[in-house]
């Protein structure tokens, strides 16, 4: 089974969602991420979704669940790089990822988090 890699960069975790994420991959990602948040004490997770051409309700739910898990472990998720067509479609679908921080790109997420200099 494929696993989504989780990279520690500076003092945050970078997760890049790509291609096709099946149920099992999604579950494994949640588990891995939970463990990595605890083991690295990272407070910030950048979820780079710039490579996703669509976000359906399954992926929408995964993003929401990841954010909720992170919050329970005292970390925050910033979703970075959503394509405009994806944003429009997601809103029309009825999902708006309310309460989740977003950034145009990984770089602007870093600037937002005030940690650009620290990497």
């Amino acid at each position: 089974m494929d696993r989504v890699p989780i990279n520690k960069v500076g003092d945050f975790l970078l997760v890049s969602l790509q291609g096709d994420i099946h149920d099992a991959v999604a579950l494994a990602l949640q588990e891995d991420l939970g463990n990595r948040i605890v083991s690295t004490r990272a407070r910030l997770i950048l979820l780079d979704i710039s490579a996703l051409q669509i976000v359906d309700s399954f992926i929408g739910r995964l993003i929401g669940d990841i954010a909720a898990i992170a919050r329970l472990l005292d970390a925050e998720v910033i979703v970075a790089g959503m394509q405009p067509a994806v944003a429009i479609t997601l809103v029309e679908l009825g999902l708006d990822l309310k309460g989740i921080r977003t950034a145009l790109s990984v770089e602007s997420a870093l600037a937002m988090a005030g940690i650009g200099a620290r990497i």
Partner: protein
Amino acid sequence: MLASSAATEAITVHLETQGDVVVLRHRVREHALELGFSLLDQTKIVTAASELGRNAITYGGGGEAMIESLHDGRRIGIALTVTDHGPGIADVEQAMRPGFTTGSGLGYGLSGTKRLVDEFEIQSQVGVGTTVRIARWR
């Protein structure tokens, strides 16, 4: 019946595993691209296809999808028909309600799909299966 008429060139995708949803998404995007749909329209159509394909597998135990080009004289469109022979849906109106799910989803698949397309038709019979047909015009 949907308002859409005269279809040509149908493509069929079998839906059994989650990987088949990936294939479906690719086929639908290719088709929409060929028909000249904008990036935004492609995104909407592929997202709708993904929702229906996933439902057919998750709830319908697998099935198949047919992608068609539509031409009604004035307009060009794309249609997708997803069929399964699963348990069917006892209360379709309830299933269509935003937020309703019997699984672990968000319950926005069917209602959201309807909002993403121009035409949406669902037929379901308990013990027989479910067919959803959607169309979007350019």
